[in-house]
């Protein structure tokens, strides 16, 4: 088994680290967070240096890349600029859906823009009554006169929708009996008449806005449909696995950043006449944290490798998402403990990582939903 990255991957990661040191130093990420500002400048820098085209077809100006390479990018982003890592990860699912299911015209327009540094396409699934039970969504799309779609409804937690040019919007045909065969996907320009977007204040992700979206008689041309009518659920599920994995990889980077802060602090902070790192209870924490980081990284390496080798990862990806998002938060929480009062102060980045990473156990499918995906699959293996 060879754990080494390829030379190309290593060079790409050094290039990315250097880029982030230049364009997204910690002080700047902290400032953006405090001001609740989208990281426009780092995002543009990623685009200018070809990172936003990774995984996108060369036809649209991108550079093909495997899942592992994209995870590595998210990991490094997560370590040095977590909000940027989140935005990168959120972008992957909509990019892939568009690449796989959109028309050539839609692809050229949207993917070309993303490669140049437009924010990712937002994803509009969740509604006030439909969270974990995404199939409970009610937003409707009605074809009028075989010319125009008329859309009505409300979305919630639609991240990036107030900065994005488009929302990849899920709707439901109320007449279809089976909800999974009654959903459709649309490419909705956010400046369309009848769309109202309202950011929601939240605990973390201050540079990554999450909004409610109201849709009142929104009219879209027939060509705004992505893929096939009533095939939306299948299209959506096609790329959830990679999105969950890439977002998990960004959590590993965040945990490593917190761990490094904690280990450095343990060497410096003197109490009872000696560095707190001398106390075995602190050492125990640091060792446990280091083990978790190692496990998390190996876990996403393996799932990425499976995906790159076209193996199914139905329950594997859910278990990895569950483990990594939990363990990364535990590591950051322990780092806060090691930093004591300083870890809880706004002056230190630990509090931001703590606020930012906590939600990874909710978004993209909650812990409980990951158990629901994995549990039955595991049982099925042992059914006689």
């Amino acid at each position, binding site marked *: 088994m060879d754990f080494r990255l390829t030379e*190309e991957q290593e060079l790409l990661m050094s*290039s990315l680290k*250097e880029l982030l040191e230049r364009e997204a130093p910690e002080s700047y990420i902290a400032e953006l967070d405090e001001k609740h500002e989208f990281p426009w400048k780092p995002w543009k820098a990623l685009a200018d240096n*070809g*990172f936003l*085209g990774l995984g996108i077809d060369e036809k649209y100006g991108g*550079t093909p890349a495997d899942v592992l390479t994209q995870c590595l990018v998210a990991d490094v982003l997560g370590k040095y600029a977590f909000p940027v890592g989140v935005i990168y990860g959120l972008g992957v699912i909509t990019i892939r859906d568009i690449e796989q299911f959109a028309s050539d015209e839609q692809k050229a327009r949207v993917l070309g823009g993303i490669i140049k540094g437009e924010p990712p396409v937002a994803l509009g699934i969740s509604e006030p009554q439909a969270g974990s039970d995404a199939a409970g969504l009610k937003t409707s799309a009605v074809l009028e006169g075989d010319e125009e779609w008329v859309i009505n409804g409300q979305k919630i937690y639609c991240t990036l929708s107030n900065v994005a040019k488009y929302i990849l919007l899920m709707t439901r045909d109320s007449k279809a009996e089976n909800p999974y065969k009654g959903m459709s996907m649309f490419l909705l320009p956010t400046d369309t008449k009848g769309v109202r977007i309202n950011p929601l204040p939240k605990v973390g992700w201050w540079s990554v806005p999450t909004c409610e979206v109201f849709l009142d008689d929104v009219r879209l041309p027939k060509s705004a449909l992505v893929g096939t009518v009533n095939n939306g659920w299948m299209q959506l599920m096609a790329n959830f696995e990679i999105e969950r994995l890439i977002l998990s990889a960004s959590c590993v980077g965040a945990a490593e950043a917190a761990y490094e802060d904690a280990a450095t602090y343990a060497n410096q902070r003197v109490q009872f006449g000696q560095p707190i790192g001398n106390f075995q209870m602190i050492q125990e924490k640091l060792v446990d944290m280091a083990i978790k980081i190692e496990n998390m990284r190996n876990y996403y390496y393996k799932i990425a490798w499976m995906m790159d080798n076209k193996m199914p990862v139905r329950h594997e990806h859910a278990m990895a998402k569950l483990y990594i998002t939990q363990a990364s938060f535990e590591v950051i929480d322990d780092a806060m403990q090691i930093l004591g009062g300083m870890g809880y102060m706004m002056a230190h980045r630990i509090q931001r990582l703590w606020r930012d990473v906590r939600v990874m156990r909710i978004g993209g499918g909650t812990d409980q939903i990951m158990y629901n995906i994995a549990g039955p699959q595991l049982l099925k293996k042992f059914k006689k």
Partner: protein
Amino acid sequence: MNIIVCYKLVPDPEDVVAKPDGSISLDQAEWIISDYDLMAIEAAVQLVEANGGKVMALSVGPSQLANSKAKKDVLSRGPDELYLVVDDGLRDADTSLTARTLAAAVAKLGEFDLILTGEGSADLYFQQVGMQLGELLGLPTFNAISKVEWSGGKLAVERSLEDEVEALEVPAPAVLAVTTDINQPRLPSMKEILKAGKKPVVEWTLGDLAVQDGLAQRVEVLSVRSPKQVNRKQIRIEGKPEEAAQALIGHLSKEGVL
């Protein structure tokens, strides 16, 4: 225009370990392109982008140079071709041997309009190799170059001195050592990194070149030592500024610093 850009691989300063006895260990060090040379590479690439032609990267040194990642690294930053003189006889080469080897390699490269180098090397920083190379080749040679333009077969350059900027017209070919503020080097994208593996690389050893005076060195290094590390004293001075200053003076004189 054809440009030769010289670069050096140096141990990554982050990986250099000072041992308790003061000796320096490079065992764990990854070898990377010297910072200062990145600006020379970028300047060469920008000139060729603006005027056409090609960039030939050139380096001489020990076996680390032949590392395949190191080769991709330099080529991912824009040069079209790579020429290396890899020979363990060049380990710890002084500036004279380095410049003489570069001159012998340049003689094999054919026509060129300009040779660019960095201002010095990130490990030794003698700032001599570029100047000696120009002298050996008998070409107009300048350091402290903060701007280069190519027009009508001549070079229009600016030289940043302490209190003034000299504007000079230099006939080609010439050897120029560029400053660190001449540009901000671009970062390699995945596209460039993937392309790098497919660009032509030519490797020579000392045996392939006619180096003037062979392996003779002009400088003998007796030893390299790191300054002694001392533990922090963890002394905290509090109180009014005047009293604190007095206390500080007290501590410093006790240590024999004052």
